[in-house]
């Protein structure tokens, strides 16, 4: 018995002696990506995790400044000619790949041709559909890739010709699918050129290790043209479970984390909790062809019967209640558009529609994809409609892909949906509800709206653009009332006090090139 005890003590002492340090080793940041990047091939990537990783590895012609405006990156300058139809980018001489070779205009030509080639099967190829012949090549009508409106005039000069002038084109050039590629590398290692042993990058970091489904390690790119990162290493773990992430943050094994909503109240005043609004909107969509929501008065009544101010308490984070669609921080945002909470008026509208006190109104089905947050929100909406209007709402949850199929082919009367900005321009939000828009699940069609969105995309005058988007938002939120915005998204996160120079931008993106560990404040 005594020997047994001795062994147990020895084991415990042994484990304690080599227990995890729980400390930042200095000059290293440990972050959680939450999911494995499905691919780091920037032509075919579509998900946030891969894009977040790539934004730290790669840079394109332009990048965002602090105000989310396109600023020079690999291109040191550009000219716009032919009334906005042609862009000429001048690459900076110091722009280099991580093997020290210069970035050439031909690297962009190859990458854009690969992106648009049908055989690549790139989902985000449509991001460059505004480039001349891009859509025709992608749909197989033109076979000759050299017909794409991109040309290398010399090693450092790139000419891009557009189908129509688009004022937001430099914004598109910040997006990962437009980043350059090294032809010889992609062709020599078609399935593995994004692995650490082969990948070449143009951004602040290089990928040095990738243990799939576990972690990625990034180290500074010695040939980066701009200020080199201060960190020696950034480790991106793949921890799916939010509570595990929080535990590892608590034990000091992570320097940054996004806590699960239930934990936010406990950490809210810790000094380590932060929240930042991001460009995204959560909404309840209507199928305006399905009774009883084919009745405009009913749709308006429902929109006025939700007290959105209660949502941040329910979600525990710092989400911003919304009545309009285009989020704050973006041109086109106008908080005075849409219907604020007004239960009296909502009841009057419902009575006017012939459903006094909700009597006679058939039950409404509100569908959502199975997720805790969606459940909370939809139950809240159900309670608000019942309490304020006396109507019956059935909730129906579905697995994600089943839900997507249903909203595409036979949308329920009401369904939850959300939209994050792909690029910080109101066009990305407004074009959702155009008549033939693939993301328009409301069955709404309106020629005036379509024209306004098209005009606004090409309007260089900011004041006029704002007016066009105001009018467009009034049509979808007030005149036709095709959906109800509920709140603008926020990223809720915790960060250790010794981490400096790190923040999310309004796109929800995080960049580690300016981050550093403040040794003076490092936890003992």
């Amino acid at each position, binding site marked *: 018995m005594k020997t047994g005890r001795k062994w147990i003590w020895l084991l415990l002492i042994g484990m304690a002696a080599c227990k995890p340090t729980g400390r930042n080793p200095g000059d290293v940041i440990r972050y959680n990506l939450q999911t494995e990047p499905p691919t780091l091939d920037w032509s075919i990537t579509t998900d946030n995790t891969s894009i977040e990783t790539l934004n730290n590895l790669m840079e394109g012609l332009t990048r965002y400044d602090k105000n989310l405006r396109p600023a020079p990156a690999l291109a040191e300058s550009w000219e716009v000619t032919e009334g906005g139809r042609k862009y000429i980018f001048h690459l900076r001489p110091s722009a280099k790949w991580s093997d020290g070779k210069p970035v050439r205009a031909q690297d962009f030509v190859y990458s854009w041709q690969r992106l648009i080639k049908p055989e690549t099967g790139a989902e985000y190829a449509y991001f460059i559909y505004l480039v001349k012949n891009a859509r025709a090549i992608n749909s197989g009508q033109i076979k000759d890739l050299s017909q794409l409106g991109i040309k290398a005039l010399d090693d450092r000069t790139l000419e891009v010709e557009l189908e129509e002038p688009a004022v937001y084109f430099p914004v598109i050039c910040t997006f990962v699918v437009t980043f350059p590629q090294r032809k010889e590398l992609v062709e020599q290692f078609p399935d593995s050129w994004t692995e650490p042993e082969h990948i070449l990058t143009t951004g602040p970091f290089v990928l040095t290790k990738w243990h799939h489904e576990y972690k990625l390690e990034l180290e500074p790119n010695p040939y980066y043209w701009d200020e080199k990162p201060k960190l020696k290493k950034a480790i991106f773990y793949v921890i799916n479970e939010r509570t595990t992430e929080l535990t590892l943050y608590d034990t000091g094994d992570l320097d940054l984390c996004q806590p699960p909503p239930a934990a936010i109240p406990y950490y809210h005043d810790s000094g380590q909790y932060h929240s930042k609004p991001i460009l995204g909107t959560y909404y309840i969509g209507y199928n305006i062809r399905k009774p009883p929501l084919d009745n405009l008065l009913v749709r308006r009544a429902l929109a006025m019967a939700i007290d959105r101010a209660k949502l941040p308490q329910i979600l525990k984070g710092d989400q911003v209640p919304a009545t309009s669609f285009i989020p704050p921080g973006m041109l086109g945002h106008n908080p005075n558009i849409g219907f604020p909470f007004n239960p009296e008026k909502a009841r009057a509208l419902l009575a006017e529609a012939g459903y006094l006190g909700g009597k006679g109104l058939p039950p409404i089905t509100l569908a959502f994809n199975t997720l805790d947050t969606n459940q909370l929100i939809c139950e809240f909406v159900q309670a608000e409609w019942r309490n304020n209007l006396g109507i019956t709402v059935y909730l129906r949850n579905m697995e994600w892909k*089943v839900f997507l199929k249903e909203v595409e082919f036979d949308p329920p009367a009401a369904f939850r949906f959300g939209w994050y900005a792909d690029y910080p321009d109101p066009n990305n939000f407004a074009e959702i509800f155009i008549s033939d828009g693939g993301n328009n699940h409301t069955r709404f069609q309106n020629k005036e709206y379509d024209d306004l969105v098209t005009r606004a995309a090409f309007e260089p005058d900011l004041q006029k653009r704002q007016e066009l988007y105001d009018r467009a938002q009034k049509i979808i939120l007030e005149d036709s009332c095709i959906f109800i915005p509920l709140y603008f998204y926020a990223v809720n996160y915790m960060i250790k006090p010794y981490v400096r120079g790190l923040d999310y931008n309004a796109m929800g993106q995080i960049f580690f090139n300016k981050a550093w560990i403040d040794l003076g404040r490092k936890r003992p």
Partner: protein
Amino acid sequence: MIGLVIKRFFYGLVVVWAVATITFFLMHSVPGGPFDSEKKFPPEILKNIQAKYHLDQPLWKQYGFYMSDLSRLKFGPSFKYRNRQVEDILAQTFPVSMYLGFWALLIAVSFGVSAGIVSALRHNQAFDRIAIFLTTLGISVPSFVLATLLIYLFGHRLKILPPALLEDWRHYLLPAFSLAAAPSAYLARLSRSTLLDTLGKPFVQSVKARGVSGARLVFKHLLKNSLSPVVTVLGPLVAMLITGSFVIEKIFSIPGMGRYFITAVTNRDYPLIMAVTIVYAVLIVLMNFLVDLCYAALDPRVRLK
């Protein structure tokens, strides 16, 4: 013996083919496709992707392509992890699950069977009652609850074991115990009841009358006559433990194969769904064959045909 192995190999092949075929048609009948996403893209793009992965072909043709690849042991590219071949994904994740599963199995068998033996030998005594209580607890407490409690106690409060991740051997301890708890409890109850059953048989009295007792009685006579049911459950248990657990791998952030049993389905990653199902089916077939061999070794009356 060689004839038996060849015969069982062909039987196994038929089982795996049936599993693969049923899975193939079932997964294609579920609504939603691998490239459905919140952000819808233009129809020509969908067409390009479907052409690339042969999803534009009739289902019977897709089945033909798949079976032809499978006969060459190729699972094809993943639809979700688009730069990676499914066989590479399995080659990276299966060993992790297998290693963790091996430790869990070792814990489950050693704790479970020995607790069962001692319980049966001390029937209705204090040890037996405590063991009954603990095994009931082990079976009824879900692994994710136990895992959370272990993380809280050893990782968070006492800080003597890492709460998650996979850097060295200590990282395997909590997940292996969490994974082993339920099978261990089940094996303990099973071995206890079968041993009690054996203890009541007349031959035991005769062996005891010959003066055999102690370890010799337990290991040479009792266990050999009681282990068949335990061996029966060990087959599928081994297959289950070494292919990984979705819940445990998620909670401890372990890069194993278990997660794909769920995520491949939610992502509609057809090649990966097929691969994990086939691997699991092959392991079950293999384990059942080994179990049959063990029967023959344990009981001379069993003859394999």
